[in-house]
Every structure is written in structure tokens, then in C-alpha cells.
């Protein structure tokens, strides 16, 4: 029932003015250094209003704050599960590397997955894959085997990243919410295009690329991988015949121009929910807008920390939701 989320959507609308506007991002850009920029964010209530020592701590606190609100609004809602898978797979990646290479992954784990990070870490450490939820079981085993055999972190990442995309797309496509279906389709297609471009630039063979790419409705991964194994012109030529034709233009400019274009496409998809007063979609849109906001804050603050010029950072800024 669409009206089921009336309270949630209304509360989200009252929270939307807290999202950083373009003018506030400009103020952040004008801050003399990263420390003062972080102080500005704290003054605006970002990260709960506390001042954090590092950027990562600040972003993590803001992420936790968002999930806390979402749990309060729509407790145990299946719609969010698909977005929490990303955290599960991220934690799995850290757990596999920690288990095989004895790396200390304690600081890498994230909260807000569908299962606690600790559970994933222990299951992988002891190779007790049955203790893992179904969507991670097979991938965990496969990733550990690949890492043990090849000792290549990249090969291990390929296995986990593809499984994550595949799993999220599969669950996402069965959702009743159009925004979830569209978002997942775009996410997978854009990830595949990124794999194709990076693979093409580093000279990866078509077989490797096919293994790395997750299938989706709007792209033929076999053709895209074959094109990427040839050269960038073949990738552009293939993309021209898909709905991602504009991606080719952005790619010709630079990889960061493509990433900006990709994020803006997602934001355009999400922004349509600004005028929707009912259903769960505006709540999801808010969640994705917050993700975009964190990405933008990270971009500005990392730029500030590394002394990058204001104009250079501004060029890379994505469209804001508000």
C-alpha cells in the first residue's frame, strides 16, 4: 500500500533541507584548509555535529546516523536489504584478505550489513562457510580459493565484486519499487563500463573482462568485453548503440568526467522522487542522496588535504539532490 510510508516520507521531507546545498558546498570549497572545512561540517550538524580527527571517522559517523534514521523509519524493510548487501560484500573482501594474508582488517569492517562483520570474519577465518548467509557462502569459498591459488588481490576482488553486482542486481530486479530496479540496472551497467575501460587501458584479455563483468539487461557483456580487449575506439563504438551513448563522450574527455557523468545520471534518476509524496521510493532517494553527499564531501576534503586548487575540485563536483 503506497500510503504505508506517509510518515516516513514526510519525515524525510523535513530532513531534506539538512542536505548540503550547492551554496554550502561552495562555502566548504572556500574553506582555507581541511580542518576548517571539517569544522564547518560539524557546525552544520554533519556527522552528528561532533568534530572528528579524521575524514573517514566523520564519514562513517554520518553513514551510521543515516542508517539509524532509516531503521527507525522503516524497520526491517526488505527494500533496504539489497543496499546493505554492498556492505556485506565489502566486509567479505576484508575478511578473505585478513584470513589468507594475515592482514589486520579490523579498521576496514563496516557496520550496517545484513550480518555483523564479526560473523563474516570468523566464518572465513575458520573456513566455516555454512555460518555465512546464503548470498555470501559460495562467493566466500571461491574468493578464498582464488586468493590461495593466485595470491592476487585483484583476482580475489574480481570474484567478490562480480558476485556483489550480480546478487544486488538479481534481488533488485525482483523488487516492486521501480527506483530500485532502475538504480540496480544503472549501477551494474556503469560498473561494467568502468571495468571495460580500466581493462582496456591495462590490456586485460577478453576472458578476464567477461569474468569481471556482471550481466545486465541493457548491455551485452560479451560484446563489451570483446570491444575492451581491442581498443578504446571499439568500446566507444559499442556504447554508441546502447542507451549509454553519452558515456562514450564523457569517456573521451577523461575517466573522472565519466565518473561524474555516471553519478549525475544516478542522481537524475533519484531526483525524480522529489515530487513523489508516497511509497518507499522517496526514502530510498534520500538514502542515495546522502551517499552522494558523502562522496562529494570526501572529494572536497581529500582535495583540501592534498592542496588541490578550488577550481580543480569544483570541476569534479556532482549535482546535488537539493
Amino acid at each position, binding site marked *: 500500500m503506497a500510503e504505508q510510508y506517509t510518515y516516513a516520507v514526510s*519525515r524525510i521531507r*523535513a530532513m531534506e533541507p539538512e542536505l548540503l546545498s550547492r551554496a554550502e558546498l561552495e562555502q566548504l570549497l572556500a574553506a582555507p584548509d581541511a580542518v576548517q572545512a571539517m569544522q564547518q561540517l560539524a557546525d552544520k550538524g554533519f556527522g552528528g555535529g561532533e568534530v572528528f580527527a579524521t575524514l573517514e571517522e566523520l564519514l562513517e559517523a554520518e553513514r551510521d546516523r543515516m542508517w539509524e534514521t532509516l531503521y527507525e523509519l522503516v524497520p526491517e524493510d526488505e527494500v533496504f536489504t539489497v543496499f546493505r548487501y554492498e556492505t556485506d560484500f565489502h566486509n567479505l573482501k576484508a575478511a578473505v584478505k585478513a584470513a589468507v594474508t594475515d592482514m589486520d582488517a579490523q579498521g576496514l569492517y563496516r557496520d550496517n550489513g545484513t550480518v555483523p562483520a564479526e560473523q563474516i570474519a570468523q566464518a572465513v577465518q575458520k573456513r566455516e562457510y555454512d555460518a555465512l548467509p546464503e548470498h555470501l557462502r559460495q562467493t566466500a569459498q571461491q574468493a578464498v580459493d582464488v586468493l590461495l591459488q593466485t595470491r592476487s588481490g585483484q583476482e580475489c576482488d574480481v570474484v567478490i565484486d562480480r558476485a556483489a553486482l550480480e546478487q544486488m542486481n538479481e534481488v533488485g530486479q525482483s523488487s516492486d519499487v521501480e527506483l530500485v530496479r532502475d538504480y540496480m540496472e544503472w549501477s551494474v551497467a556503469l560498473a561494467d563500463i568502468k571495468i571495460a575501460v580500466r581493462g582496456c587501458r591495462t590490456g586485460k584479455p577478453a576472458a578476464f573482462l567477461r569474468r569481471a563483468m556482471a550481466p545486465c539487461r541493457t548491455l551485452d557483456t560479451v560484446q563489451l568485453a570483446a570491444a575492451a580487449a581491442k581498443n578504446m575506439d571499439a568500446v566507444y563504438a559499442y556504447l554508441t548503440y546502447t542507451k549509454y551513448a553519452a558515456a562514450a563522450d564523457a569517456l573521451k574527455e577523461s575517466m573522472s568526467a565519466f565518473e561524474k557523468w555516471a553519478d549525475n545520471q544516478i542522481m537524475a534518476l533519484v531526483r525524480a522522487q522529489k515530487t513523489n509524496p508516497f511509497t518507499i521510493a522517496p526514502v530510498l532517494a534520500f538514502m542515495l542522496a546522502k551517499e552522494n553527499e558523502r562522496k562529494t564531501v570526501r572529494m572536497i576534503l581529500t582535495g583540501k588535504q592534498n592542496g588541490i586548487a578550488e577550481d580543480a575540485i569544483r570541476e569534479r563536483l556532482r549535482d546535488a539532490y537539493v
Partner: protein
Amino acid sequence: MMESLGIVFALAGAALAALMAGIGSAIGVGMAGEAAAGVVTEDPQKFGKVLILQLLPGTQGIYGLLIAFMTLTQIGILGGDANISLAKGLLYFAACLPMAFVGLWSAKRQARAAVSGIQLVAKRPDQMGKSMIFAAMVETYAILALLVSILSIFGIAGLNI
């Protein structure tokens, strides 16, 4: 036997007007109340503004009550001669229908407009006036139905059937 059915139909009409318009308003005010609570959770100072918007879908219930009350008075249930013909009873029944159906439907639709208005006020408190106009537009049709029902009820009293 058939003659005494007049009062039955007339009373059924009055009950229907109060019932359906009342249900519509209950749904509408409830839905707008959820939205208002959502906004007040984040910003308690907006209580006054959102309360007005929440109340807008409540008027249909009052109109339904008014039509029911007028019908009951006219047909003599609240005192007087309760002996009306079958034809008159059916006419009263028909006279109550506009308020019953339009009341139910307009309250539900007005609630959606009120929820959107509450969300508009949540983001832009200075747009309170406009958000009220959007929801109040729906009221027009509830008032038109009320008018038709009132005119019919008074008109039937003068008929000689």
C-alpha cells in the same frame, strides 16, 4: 406495507451520507496526521502549520453529518410526523447520495493533496498559503455535492407525492 418503506429509504439515505463522508474524513485526517507527525518529529515548531492542513479532509464528515441531520429533521424522525410516502423516501435517499459518494472520495483525494502540502511546508515553510490552496481546491467538489443534497432535501419537502 410498501407505503411504510418510505421512511426506511429516507433513513438509509441519511445514514449513508453520515457513514461514507465520515469514513472518508477518518481516512483522510488519519493519513494527513501521519504526515504531520513525521514533520513534527523533525521540527516541532511546525505543529501549528501542519495541523491546519491535517484538518482539511475533516470537513466532509461534518457535511455528511449536516445532511443526515437535515434529512432526519425533514422526515420526522427527530419529532413530528414520520409518515412519508415510498416515492418521497426514495427521493430523500437519492438526495443524500451526492454527499455520501463525493464526501467519501473527495476526503480521500484531499488527504493526498494535504499530505503533499504538509511535505511542502516541511521543506519550505514560507509556502504554507499555497499548500493550503492546493488541498482546499478539492473542497470545492465536496461543497458542490453538499449544495445539491441540501437543495434536494428542501425541494422534496414541498413536493406533493
